[in-house]
Each structure stands twice: as structure tokens, then as C-alpha cells.
């Protein structure tokens, strides 16, 4: 047997192994994609109803006598007027057969509690409406919403059904007369949290996350980049610096809840900073993101070819100039990617923020970094914890919003990377 034959024999085996490896690689990728798809379809199918709002169209009579205000009234007066009355009157008008008190209460619950605020806001915006009749699409109650979307099965026997026969009858009447409409749920993106599922919105959490991330970015980016530059380019090589390096790596491995405890003890209890505020959340998260950005920035700086530094130094640039004119721009894509990864981590972080009170139920939309607020992942947690059915879809919708922001951030990271990447 000559060499060629020996090689030929072993070739077969080698190719087999290669094929085996390729197949296994492919299989793992397919599995990963399948799980991802499963997760996304599950979230998406559960979330879509949250983006659709059910409305009840009613013609309300905004007469001065009922409201106790007129077109000349100031905002203060309009705010305190009772806008429930015209809505209730409109409902009774539509269903004149309802007379018993208990039944009336049922009838009134066809529209959401938010309907009166909706009407109030319209009137504040345009006081000329007072004294006229208006046909308005009011936000429906979550039960109506559930019937329309099919999450409450109309065919169930009455005893097993949340919506009783009376109410179901009214809903079907309204449906038949075209007074029930659906449309994109802008309200979900324009409102804060609420106890009523149909009134609950994500804007408060989005802004809370935004403020928190802004604080995190403003604190951690400059500090981390400065630390990385110092450690890579200027620090002497000695035990003390080694010690610092080890501790930065340790910091990256500390469970995030520990940072929350630290935030509670130091910033809230000792420095008396406001509870539940993005400013404290941002500080706590920046402690967590710092090591991530430092480590990413250091490896980006390390990857800059030494020839670039030598070129600058050889021309008589100072160390500082060589770093800021050449090393930093070359390392920027890596630094930015690391920063965005750190920010994405911070966006999804829940545990430390629970510790500093960002888990509170907050209806008002935060106006600044010191206002109490919550963040997206905690909103998910809060809604997932609520018993009402309507919050189920809100939970998935909030997850979708969170995922959207994460994907957007990653897209920005890729874009920045492409934009600043230069070959040398």
C-alpha cells in the first residue's frame, strides 16, 4: 500500500468528521432559531390585542346645566366638572329599558373610567364644545374589550362567564348598530400606568427607562472611557494597578441586586436622594455598567495597532496627543459597541431597581430624573403580577416594546461600528 492509498483511506474519515461537525453546528443554529421564533410568536400573539383599542360610540349632550360650566369657564372649573353625567345619560338614552339601580351600574360600566377624562380633556382643549351635542368614540371597559377581542367566550354558560347576559346583550346591540369600533391603541403609548387595564399605558415606563439610561450614560461613559484610557495608556505597571484591574473584573461579576442594596443604603438612606427616582436608578445602573464599558474600551484600545501610536510619537506628538488624536478615534467603534451593550444590559435590568423603590405603582408620567417612575422591565413585572386578564396582553406588549428598544440599540451599535470603522 503506497502513501496515496493511506491518505485516501484517512481522507474518508476526515471528511466524515468534517460533515458531522458541520451538521451539528447547523442543528444547534436551527434549534436556537426555533426557540427564538417560539418566544417571539408567543409574545407577539399575546401582545397584539394590546395594540388595538375597543371604543364605544356615544352621542353626548354637553349642556351647561348638567355640567355646571359654560364656554367662558376657566380650566380650573372645567377640571372639577362632572363629566360622568353626560356619558351616563347617553348610555341610558341608548338603552332606555334599563331602570333598576343595579342594572344601571352595570350599564355605566360599558365605558371605561377613562371615558370621563377623555371627555374632560376634549372640553379643556376646546371649551366651545360646551352646550353642543357631540358623537364621540369612548374608550370601552376592559370587559367589553375582552368580549370584542374574543378573550371572553360569548358561548360559555352565564355562570362561567365574567360578562353576564344583560351586558353581553347590550354589547351585541351596540355591535349590531355599528357603535363599537376598534382602532390602533395610541392611548397605550400616551398614558402612564393604571389599575384599569384599558387605561394603562407604557409611556411612563418608557420615559422612566429613558431618564434612567440617560443618567447611566452620562455617568458611566466618561468615567469608564477615562479609566480605560488611563489603565491602557498611562498607568504604570505595578501591583496597585494590577489590584485595580482585578477588582474591575470582579465588579463585572457582582450580582446586580447587590448594587441595588448599595444604592438603597448609600444614596437613599445616607444621602437622602429621592426614592423611586431615575437619578438613583441611573447611578446604581452606572455602577453596574462601568466595568462592562471599561473592559470593552480597554480591549478596543488594546486592539489599536501599536504602529499607529509609534507613528504619532515619531512625529513628536505627545502621549496625550497620540491617544486623543489617533488611538481613541481608532478604538471608538469598539468603545461605542461596548457602551451600547452596557446600556442594553442596563435597560433590561430589574433587580437593583426593585431595591430602590422603582417598583412602586406610579400613574404620573415622570417629567424629570427626580420624579418617581418605573422602568420597562419593572412595568413588565408589575403587569405580569396583576390579576386582571387585560394585563396579560399588556405584559406581552410591554415585552415587545422592551425588545424593540433593545433591537434599536443594537442596530445603532452596528451602525456606529460601520460608520467609525476605518482600516489601517
Amino acid at each position: 500500500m503506497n502513501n496515496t492509498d493511506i491518505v485516501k483511506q484517512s481522507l474518508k474519515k476526515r471528511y466524515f468528521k468534517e460533515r458531522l461537525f458541520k451538521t451539528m453546528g447547523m442543528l444547534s443554529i436551527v434549534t436556537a432559531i426555533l426557540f427564538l421564533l417560539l418566544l417571539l410568536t408567543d409574545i407577539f400573539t399575546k401582545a397584539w390585542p394590546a395594540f388595538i383599542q375597543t371604543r364605544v360610540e356615544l352621542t353626548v349632550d354637553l349642556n351647561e346645566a348638567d355640567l355646571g360650566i359654560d364656554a367662558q369657564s376657566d380650566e380650573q372649573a372645567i377640571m372639577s366638572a362632572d363629566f360622568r353625567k353626560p356619558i351616563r345619560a347617553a348610555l341610558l338614552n341608548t338603552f332606555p329599558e334599563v331602570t333598576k339601580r343595579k342594572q344601571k351600574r352595570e350599564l355605566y360600566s360599558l365605558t371605561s373610567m377613562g371615558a370621563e377624562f377623555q371627555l374632560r380633556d376634549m372640553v379643556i382643549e376646546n371649551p366651545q364644545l360646551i352646550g353642543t351635542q357631540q358623537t364621540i368614540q369612548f374608550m370601552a371597559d376592559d370587559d367589553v374589550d375582552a368580549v370584542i377581542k374574543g378573550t371572553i367566550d360569548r358561548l360559555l354558560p352565564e355562570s362561567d362567564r365574567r360578562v353576564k347576559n344583560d351586558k353581553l346583550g347590550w354589547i351585541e346591540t351596540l355591535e349590531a348598530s355599528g357603535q363599537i369600533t376598534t382602532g390602533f391603541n395610541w392611548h397605550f403609548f400616551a398614558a402612564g400606568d393604571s389599575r384599569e387595564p384599558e387605561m394603562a399605558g407604557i409611556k411612563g415606563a418608557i420615559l422612566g427607562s429613558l431618564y434612567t439610561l440617560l443618567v447611566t450614560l452620562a455617568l458611566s461613559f466618561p468615567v469608564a472611557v477615562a479609566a480605560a484610557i488611563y489603565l491602557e495608556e498611562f498607568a504604570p505597571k505595578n501591583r496597585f494597578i494590577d489590584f485595580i484591574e482585578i477588582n474591575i473584573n470582579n465588579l463585572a461579576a457582582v450580582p446586580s441586586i447587590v448594587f441595588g442594596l448599595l444604592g438603597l443604603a448609600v444614596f437613599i438612606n445616607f444621602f437622602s436622594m429621592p426614592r423611586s427616582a431615575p437619578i438613583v436608578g441611573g447611578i446604581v445602573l452606572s455602577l453596574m455598567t462601568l466595568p462592562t464599558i471599561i473592559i470593552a474600551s480597554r480591549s478596543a484600545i488594546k486592539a489599536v495597532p501599536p504602529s499607529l501610536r509609534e507613528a504619532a510619537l515619531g512625529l513628536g506628538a505627545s502621549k496625550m496627543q497620540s491617544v486623543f488624536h489617533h488611538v481613541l478615534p481608532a478604538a471608538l467603534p469598539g468603545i461605542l459597541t461596548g457602551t451600547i451593550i452596557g446600556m442594553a444590559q442596563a435597560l433590561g435590568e430589574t433587580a437593583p431597581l426593585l431595591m430602590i423603590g422603582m417598583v412602586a405603582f406610579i400613574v404620573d408620567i415622570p417629567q424629570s430624573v427626580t420624579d418617581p417612575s418605573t422602568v420597562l422591565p419593572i412595568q413588565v413585572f408589575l403587569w405580569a403580577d396583576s390579576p386582571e386578564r387585560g394585563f396579560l396582553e399588556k405584559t406581552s406588549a410591554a415585552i415587545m416594546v422592551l425588545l424593540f428598544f433593545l433591537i434599536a440599540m443594537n442596530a445603532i451599535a452596528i451602525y456606529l461600528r460601520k460608520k467609525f470603522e476605518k482600516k489601517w
Partner: protein
Amino acid sequence: MNEAVLNGLNEPTMKVQSNRETEDSLNIEYTDTVGQPLCDDPKISTRNVDVFYADNQAIHDVSLDIGAHQVIALIGPSGCGKSTYLRTLNRMNDTIDICRVKGQILLDGHDIYQKKQDPVLLRARVGMVFQKPNPFPKSIYDNVAYGPRIHGLTRNKAELDDLVEDSLIKAGLFQEVKDRLHAPGTGLSGGQQQRLCIARTIAVQPEVILMDEPASALDPIATAKIEELINELKENFTIVIVTHSMQQAARVSQRTAYFHMGRLIEVGETDQIFTNPSHELTEKYITGRFG
């Protein structure tokens, strides 16, 4: 005299006739540098220079003068310390933490390692071109303009434009790039990149230019252009060039210094070194028996 030296040294190396002569040559007693390491009109003079990387001594007791407005070539097998010695001349070694330099290095009679010498200022006077072309990832114009800008050599845009153009002309690159001064410097060919690096260096108007194997990464045509350029530049600059190509040393330099294992073995007129070397190690190297 040559004969005598060779005869005296022949004996120990005759023992082994193998291709492992580098190790073999350790048997040769090191004496002082032979030839003429010193000259009358030195731009740089180095005396008893030792360089250490931590505990490892890379340069042993080198004394050498570098004459003004001429090209001196440093040759020798790889790892013999040519780059290390070259980098002591503009204190590029300062950037390596573990590197220590002992001895005296004078530029125009002033010690460049004294405390009050600023290495940044020194590097503006002693420029450097590296082995691998390393243009900045910026435009051709910005590459050349960088040095003048950081040193504030020009007062306005027009002056800077002139200086950039002038430097590119001197580096023999202007004709090739005049239409794309704002294209990235990294988009040029290897040889053009190296000439860009030379242009960038001369834009700072240094007195001395150090070149560490400037053509070793280039093809023969690009190499020929660089050599031609070095010949022109010596009118205005003092040039120290490290090369592993003896033909190149012969073509561009007036003096040649031969290094071996951190020691300066022989220095002389280039013609003499290549036709009639005094030291046995030099002879072995230039006849291609190791390196």
C-alpha cells in the same frame, strides 16, 4: 593588516563547518569596534551606549558617530539590536517600560537623555520612518499636515497647503496623489504609503531622519523609488537607515556599521566594508554565510 586579523581569528571557527555559524561565531573573542566609528563632523555622537530590556542587555557598549548630511547604514543579522540602537537616537525606547538606556548620546553636542531634554521636542528634530508603512487612517493631506499642525509650524491654511505640497514633492509622491489629496492615505499602495510616511516626517522639517528597514515590506520597484529618494534627501537631512539588504546599504549609504549580537563590530566607508571588511564577522555576514 587585514590578512593578519583574519589569520588570527581563523583558527577557532575552522573547527566546525556547518550552517550554524551564528552560534559558532560566539567563539570569536569580541574586541573593540574596528574601523572608524568616529568622524570629524558628527551630527549625533553616541558613547558607550548600553541598552537593556529588563535584565536582558540588547546593546553592549556602542560608540558611534553619525556624520551630518550623509547616510549611515546599520546592518547585521536580525535580532542583533539595530532597531534598538536606532530607537535610542530619538528616545522612542522611552515608550517601552522595561527599556533602559545607559551611556551618552549627543545631538549637536547636547545630551538628549538629560533631564531637561523634552522627548517630544527631540522627536520633532529627529524624525522616524518605520518598517511597515503606518499612515494614519486619515486623508493624504491630513497625514502630512499632522506634524506641522501639532507643532504649530504654519500660520495659516495657505502656508500649510504649501508645506504639504512641498513635502509631498520632496518625497516624490506629489505627482501621483495631487488629484486626491483628500482620499484616505491607507488607500495608497505599499510603496506610496511609505513615501507618504516619509513626506509626513519631512513636513516637520527634522534634522535627522531614522529609517528602520523602510523598504523591507515593499516590492523591488517601490524599493528602488525609496532608495532614489534617500539619495536626494541626504542633501538636507542626516539619515540613519537600518537595512537587512546589503545591496541596499551599498546603494544608499556613505558609511556602514555592522552590528552583531548587540555589539558594534565594524564601521567604515561603505565601499570599504563591502569590498574589504576588516573583521571576520563582517566578512562572513556580507558574504552571506549568516544573517
